[in-house]
């Protein structure tokens, strides 16, 4: 990864992390504020609900009180006590309920059995355990003829007949429904929804409920959650099934339960919900009041802030890119040029130079680099000069060595020829012929040596091509192996080559000449014969 990329990544991460941290902090703070507000509104509503509940209870109690104190009821109680015949009063409760504006009304005889029932007229003669309730008002689930139950606030009053208190009185059990009409009367804040869940379904155990209809008997075994039993102020509640967890928790624990409910898959449709159990006098949960406050405002605020954060992060990353480009222009680009120049130097181009701009560390580095390459070039020049001198010296030494060898025979021949002047003509001619032959041969040898040096000085420009080194070696061996066999001192050639091809970029003629020189030199160096080994390895 290049420095530029590292800088870009570093800047981007820094900006993104900073924005994320700020956004997260703001989001958490908003959530806390909204939750605090929801808690306050829920608490306020609960207190209002309790007041309304007490008010409704007081209304029920007052209505039952008025009815119990009426002359009509006193006469009814008296006649009932005297005759013991409850049949004439079968429809009395319905009339009284209408007069008292009560939803539930039952007249219960001294024997504890229903004389007349407004909500279920056919229940006459059955016991009504609620008639002996100790509480002034209480919550009760009332069974209805259609098999459903209804939740209501009830009050029980005894009808005074002016007789002995020891005699069991006629009692009135009156009540009002706690239903969606009641919910509609409750003041709710904007975004708040009030729902009531009660087990108003079909009675699962009719035999028990009719004959032993104690209030706790039907409430002690909560039925499975049924979304249809959750009603709001304006009827059925959408996504009622989502309330199950919260309502079940309140029903089972008997304590309020709170949580966040997601009514749909959209976060905007989530609500902050509180389930408040409503209990009868025995502590059994008869219904659950749910208070939900929409989290749409909070979610929208969070989404708004999140959108801003995304925008800021994007702008920050863009800024980071620009910064990294600028910094790259100021810092990384000279370094990159230095790196490229160093690679060129490594490749042999010692004349490479980098621009020397600025007074910062990069500028110093560039100047030092240029100085270093200049020094290197200078030292190389001196080294080349030294090597050249050494080469000329070696060349002169070898030339002298090469020339000295034929000169010595030439000298001896000339001296011999000079001495031969003293000899007879025939012998002189013989010596002359031999001497001229020797001189010619040695002069030819000198020409050869000089030609070789001439060829060396005229070193042609190599023409490179891809050859196999094995072929070049084989060519040399085949050329000189026969000569080796003809020599008196027999030279045996031994070739050690790899089985694999050994490609090589070289001028084939120059390479052949070089290797031929080496072989000839070697053969020259082995006057006693021996083994000349040619080997090459990839």
């Amino acid at each position, binding site marked *: 990864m290049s420095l530029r990329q590292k800088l870009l990544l570093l800047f981007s991460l820094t900006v993104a992390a900073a924005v994320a941290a700020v956004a997260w902090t703001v989001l958490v703070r908003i959530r806390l504020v909204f939750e605090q507000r929801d808690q306050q509104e829920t608490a306020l509503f609960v207190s209002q609900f309790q007041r309304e509940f007490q008010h409704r209870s007081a209304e029920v109690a007052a209505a039952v009180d008025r009815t119990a104190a009426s002359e009509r009821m006193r006469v009814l109680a008296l006649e009932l006590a005297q005759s013991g015949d409850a049949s004439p009063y079968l429809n009395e409760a319905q009339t009284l309920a209408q007069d008292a504006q009560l939803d539930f009304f039952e007249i219960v005889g001294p024997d504890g059995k229903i004389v007349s029932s407004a909500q279920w007229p056919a229940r006459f*003669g059955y016991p009504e355990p609620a008639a002996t309730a100790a509480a002034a008002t209480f919550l009760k689930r009332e069974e209805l003829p259609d098999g459903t139950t209804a939740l209501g606030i009830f009050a029980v009053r005894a009808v005074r007949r002016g007789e002995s208190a020891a005699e069991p009185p006629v009692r009135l059990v009156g009540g009002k429904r706690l239903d969606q009409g009641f919910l509609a009367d409750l003041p709710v804040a904007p975004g708040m929804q009030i729902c009531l869940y009660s087990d108003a379904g*079909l009675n699962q155990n009719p035999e028990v409920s009719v004959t032993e209809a104690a209030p706790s008997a039907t409430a002690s075994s909560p039925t499975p959650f049924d979304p249809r039993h959750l009603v709001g102020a304006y009827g059925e509640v959408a996504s009622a099934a989502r309330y199950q967890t919260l309502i079940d928790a309140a029903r089972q624990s008997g304590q309020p339960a709170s949580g966040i409910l997601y009514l749909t898959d959209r976060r905007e449709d989530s609500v902050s919900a509180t389930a408040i159990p409503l209990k009868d006098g025995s502590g059994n949960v008869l219904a659950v009041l749910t208070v939900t406050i929409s989290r749409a405002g909070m979610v929208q605020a969070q989404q708004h802030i999140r959108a801003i954060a995304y925008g800021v992060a994007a702008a920050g990353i863009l800024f980071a890119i620009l910064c990294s480009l600028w910094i790259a222009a100021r810092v990384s680009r000279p370094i990159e040029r230095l790196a490229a120049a160093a690679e060129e130097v490594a490749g042999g181009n010692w004349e490479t130079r980098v621009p020397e701009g600025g007074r910062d560390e990069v500028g110093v580095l560039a100047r030092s680099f240029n100085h270093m390459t200049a020094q290197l070039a200078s030292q190389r020049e001196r080294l080349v000069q030294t090597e050249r001198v050494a080469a000329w010296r070696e060349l002169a030494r070898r030339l002298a060595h090469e020339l000295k060898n034929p000169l010595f025979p030439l000298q001896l021949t000339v001296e011999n020829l000079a001495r031969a002047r003293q000899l007879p003509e025939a012998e002189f001619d013989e010596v002359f012929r031999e001497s001229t032959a020797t001189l010619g041969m040695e002069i030819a040898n000198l020409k050869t040596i000089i030609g070789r040096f001439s060829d060396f000085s005229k070193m042609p420009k190599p023409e490179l091509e891809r050859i196999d080194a094995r072929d070049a070696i084989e060519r040399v061996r085949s050329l000189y192996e026969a000569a080796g066999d003809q020599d008196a001192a027999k030279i045996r050639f031994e070739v050690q080559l790899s089985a694999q091809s050994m490609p090589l970029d070289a001028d084939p003629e120059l390479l052949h000449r070089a290797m031929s020189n080496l072989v000839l030199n070697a053969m020259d160096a082995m006057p006693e014969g021996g083994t000349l080994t040619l080997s090459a390895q990839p």
Partner: protein
Amino acid sequence: MALPASARTRPHYGGTLRVEVEGDAWQRNAGLARRLVLDGLTRLDAEGTAQPALADSWATESGNHLWQFGLRPGVHFHDGSALTSTAVVASLTAACGASCPWTAVRAVGSSVVFTGDSPMPNLPALLAGDNYLIALTESWSASTAGGVTPPNVKGTGPFQFTELNNGKLILAANDSCWQGRPFVDKIEIAGHKSIRDQWLDLSVGRADLVEVPAEQLRQAREQHLTVAVSPPVELLALAVADGGILANPNLRAAIALAVDRGALSNVIFQKQGEIAASLLPSALTGYSFLFSADRDLNKARELRGGLTPPPLTISTDGGAAMQLAAQRIALNLREAGFNVQVADPGRPQFTDLVLLRLTLASNHPRAGLESLLRAVGVATPVQESDPAGLYRVEREFLDTHTLIPLLYLPRAYAASGRVRDLRLGPDGAPLLAGVSLEDAP
């Protein structure tokens, strides 16, 4: 059974009698208008014996397999056409179709001949019933096709239709009635009036004759209404479906044992009913005590045998008291472990239990029993005439527990002070042809 006659001893002709009823005045069994417009071949007297009406004589042959009824001469329909045996046969065929007690009916001269695959010992009494009243076929077809109370049915009764005005049926006296002209000139029958409205109209003088349900008889007397009450003529019974889970006879027997007849009689029907466990009332047979009407909840639970039947439904087409009785029965059955719901009266549907009222068409035991059995779909003729035989027939039928007798109820009417000589027939229907008005000219 009859209202006391006022000081004026001789009835006067004329006037309009205003009658209000809760149901349809033209309906069978309880509709007042039908019996005023139409006559049967026979009629029942106070003892339940068949008496001549449109037929003045009859004879049986072949062991009650063949009956020949001679038509009364000189009888005319309201449009002036003569009553003929052909018209009678056409009317009877159109009226009852395949559910007739006879196999074939044909006109032979001025006689009508009935033949049956099985003996028809009670045919004269059965022919007095609402189902076999005689009307002109053309008018009958027109009346039944529309499904509404027809203003154009032509019969031979003491009154004839004149118009149907705003739900009020107006009948005019038939001057040429074979029984003689009725006393009142006109009868106005307003149907579909609630009992409360009827009583209000009676109290303010807008009605002369109104209905008094059995459960409100005590209230009517407390209000000092002039009431004519029949003997117990309506059988309140619970019909139990013989299918599904109730195909189990033990469950049907459990239902019969779980119903609290006492509560129905004493409270809902305000002690005006007569507890019944048999089809015929005790006054007719004397053996009713042999059928137990006691409630035995433990035995009912035992017969249920721990079974938890699926939810059952009960329905009734009656008024508020019948609905209340149905609710009470549902409550009784829930005690025995049956989950019973009362069906919505406004939504007709099949129900497992039906609370119904059956009219005892004849107070002749054998004919009455056969008419009741026919009313619940049992077409077997009752041939036994002795109490032991009748008891056996009843016992065999009731042991199936597809019909559970509960109460016998009377029918009652309250009349204004201008109505005199009001009498109720053996089926509890008012005999308006004999009624006259006090203030008639």
